[in-house]
């Protein structure tokens, strides 16, 4: 039997390896793209205006120098790792010379706020309703809630999002269609600004919650359905323990262990952004940033976002791995 420190060291080693491999794959993929940031910049600079072919040749050379793309792939690879180890992703090539970290830092709070609230809301509601539905199987209200959750679950996300937009943005226009907050508002810790942010987040959060709720609901209901047949639950019931206490302390608590793992993975994935949500609702965030970086061939920015995402997901898994032995003695015993 391994000791807990050995367990931690093994998991840390795995974490470092996963991050290293993930970042390398991201580097290879971004540098294999046929999109050249220099050509994108030239196209942007010359797309509409008058251009002299001689001037373009000169511009191409200047931009390569400016973006630091003159060396070979190996030079760029080592330079990239040097920067990563110093916590610097370099300048964005499609918003030169602004550092990637500034762009990611500006977008991340919006994505994190949106996905954190929708993930937690969905997780809590889905598990609560799923747990209740699994335990009180005769309740008509909970069965109806189950039908609703399952009905929304398989609908493609963008369909739900567009229906919400049309209903609350056009037919009954009570919610804003786009953005993270009202135009021309000063960003401050004021009720006005907070209210505007909340108002703008209702539709994106609702769309994510409607589609995401079913998964947690069904998972929890089936877990609870299995647990209620366990001997200890039957024994507690026979022993006259209150049903609410059985549900909370005996059934839900046990069923929550795999759901917590799922939550940790979902929270880690927050840093990937919610590309479709951000596009449909015009919400500022990492997803929109990532899409525009891919189209612009901005390797620096794509690598910056994917690196943050790889580290976040791996870290979430690591944390849950480290916590497991504390929650579940069976893991510690392995």
């Amino acid at each position, binding site marked *: 039997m391994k000791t807990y420190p050995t367990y931690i060291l093994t998991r840390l080693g795995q974490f470092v390896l996963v991050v290293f491999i993930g970042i390398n794959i991201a580097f290879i993929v971004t540098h294999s793209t*046929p*999109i050249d940031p220099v*050509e*994108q910049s*030239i*196209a*942007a*600079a010359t797309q*509409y*205006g*008058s*251009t*002299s*072919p*001689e*001037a*373009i*040749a*000169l*511009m191409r050379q200047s931009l390569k120098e*400016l973006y630091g793309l003159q060396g070979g792939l190996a030079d760029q690879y080592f330079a990239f790792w040097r920067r990563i180890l110093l916590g610097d992703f370099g300048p*964005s090539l*499609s*918003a*030169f*010379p*602004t550092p990637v970290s500034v*762009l990611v830092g*500006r977008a991340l709070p919006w994505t994190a706020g949106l996905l954190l609230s929708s993930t937690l809301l969905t997780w809590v509601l889905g598990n609560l309703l799923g747990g209740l539905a699994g335990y009180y199987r005769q309740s008509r*209200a909970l069965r109806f809630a189950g039908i609703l959750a399952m009905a929304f679950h398989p609908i493609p996300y963008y369909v739900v999002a*567009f229906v919400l*937009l*049309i209903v609350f*943005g*056009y037919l009954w*226009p*009570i*919610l*804003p*269609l*786009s*953005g*993270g907050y*009202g*135009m*021309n*508002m000063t960003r401050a810790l004021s009720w*006005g600004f907070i*209210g*505007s942010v909340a*108002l703008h987040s209702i539709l994106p959060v609702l769309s994510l919650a409607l589609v995401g709720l079913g998964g947690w609901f069904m998972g929890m209901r089936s877990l609870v359905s299995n647990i209620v047949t366990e001997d200890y639950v039957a024994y507690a019931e026979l022993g006259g323990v209150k049903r609410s206490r059985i549900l909370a302390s005996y059934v839900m608590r046990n069923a929550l262990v795999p759901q917590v793992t799922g939550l940790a993975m979902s929270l880690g994935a927050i840093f990937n952004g919610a590309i479709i949500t951000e*596009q*449909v609702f*015009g919400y*500022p965030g990492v997803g*929109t940033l990532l899409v*525009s970086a891919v*189209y612009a*061939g901005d390797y620096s*920015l794509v690598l910056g976002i994917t690196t943050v995402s790889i580290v976040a997901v791996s870290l979430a898994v690591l944390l849950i791995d480290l916590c497991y032995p504390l929650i579940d003695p069976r893991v510690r015993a392995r």
Partner: protein
Amino acid sequence: MRTWRAMALSLLAICLVVEARAQGPISNLPRKETLIVENPEGTIKNAGWFNIWAINAGGQSTGLHQLGMDTFWYIDPQKGLDGVWDNSLAAEKPIYNADFTEMTVKLRKGIFWSDGVEFTADDVVYTIETHMKANGLRWSAPVQVNVAQVLSPDPQTVVFKLKKPNSRFHALFTVRWNAMWMMPKHVFEKAGDPLKFAFDPPVTLGPYTLNSYDPNGKWFIWQKRPDWQRTSVARFGEPGPKYVAYIDPGPPDKRVIAQLNHELDIIHDTSPEGMFTIAKQSQSSHGWFKGFPYAHPDPTLPAVVFNDELDVFKNRDVRWALALLIDIKAVSMASYRGAATISAIGVPPTGAGPENYHSPLESWLQSFELDTGKQKIRPYDPTIGKQIADMLRPSLKDQIPSDPATIAKSFGRGWWKPNPQAATELLERAGFSKKGDKWFLPDGKPFAIKLTVEGEGRPVMTRAGSMIAQQWRQFGIDATTTVAQGSMFDRRAAGDFEAMITWSVETWGGHPDLSFFLDSWHSQFVAAPGKPQPPRNWQRWSNPELDKLIEQIRQTAFDDPKGLELGREYVKLVVREMPTIPLMSYNVFTVMDDTYWTGYPNAETAPYTDPVPNWANTKYMMVRLKPR
């Protein structure tokens, strides 16, 4: 039951509270004084960057170049407020010496930057010298290639000494979408490296100054300068809107919803379907044309661009055969749902194009003969525009004009009549053969064409490409489409395509001079296969006759009528040679809502400028807009 009732009541209460709090798109600006415009650049990654001279560093059409920038001259893509040519910062047209090695510019007096400093020749000299010294600025390369020295003999005069003769040097400072903007010397000389200076807040020469912006790049609000009289546009009156907001309203569906809610005054572009929806549902919205086809034809000419360096397309007969296999009516329906303005010749059918090229060359086109080796045909059918209108009339009724002149303006004139027999004869003369229902190259390999399209980024053109590939396939050519998505620019520059739906022809719009694109078609700039091709001769076509025409245009002054004659010779040459197959103008579904503002430009009664709001030329629209 009680629980459910309580939940339903709570939900209703929340909805009512939200409705009570529901707000328009602007929090604290008076809507009646604010014009809201779509910025097609979308969300700006680097919103706080207003140094427009740095390439690709921040947004351009966020209002920055429409409302904040200025330069010597503007050419309007339509008729202009007072003619197509406007002396903006310049007091008069460019003055060249006899051999075009020197250009003198006389500047207007009484123009001021938004911080109260007067604009003088020193700003111009500083702008040019900064671009001569610094590599990597947006206009560094053209300045370094052309300018030997810049002088300011007095505060209102600038003299450019050029490295070699250039009769079109003024084009660098003449706005067609954009041009080289003037820098405020007193700001930039204190800023250090001009490549790393954000210029936030920008000091402007235009009639507006920045009010506020979203750090996440969703919106930019500009405010009319209290001293707008000290800007160049003041000659035409006071700009109407006190505030102008450039926003990212999201995908086409959301733009339509936003305008139907009157939260977006000008949609830059939407899908044909979006345009038809607005036309049906809104009384207050309209496009460039009052009725069908609504859209503004930009002075840009989408075409089937062959890679003429490839052996298969080197033969003129093959290119003509492929043109004769296209049914442009079907392409118009597939791409723009009929709302296209077609052009058979290599000039966009918009602005001054029809008056200077399409109309005068109509009889030449009708008598143009193509020898297939077995017969002589007259491929031009002058009635195709009318046929498209007739095809649409049963479903769109009164929206379709019946006056021939209006039809020609809206749908275009004629095009090439599909002629598979003539195409067969041309291909056979080129050594191709048909076995069964498939065509083969002279070397016996199957005749296959990959037609590159941009994909979802440009759905209208993608649909045109799919239809053309289908028509070629029906004839027995193994034609397929390849979706390039974001790699379109790279592939086009690298010549990594066989044929592509794109454009290599863009004109001033309001002026007949073709040098804007044509100069770059000279064979001196054609790159070797595999090497990047500079804009705009994407077809990599070389022709000695064309070279001679371009060289003559270079020696002809911009406004010399001889330039127009040479331009018509270019049109005849490319009809004979068909290096690309011109299709139609790039129609932009700009939709304007009259709920808060009136006076927008339109084709029928107010063609004073292009309404497409990412054009810097739209600064002229501001002086015509009036609150409702």
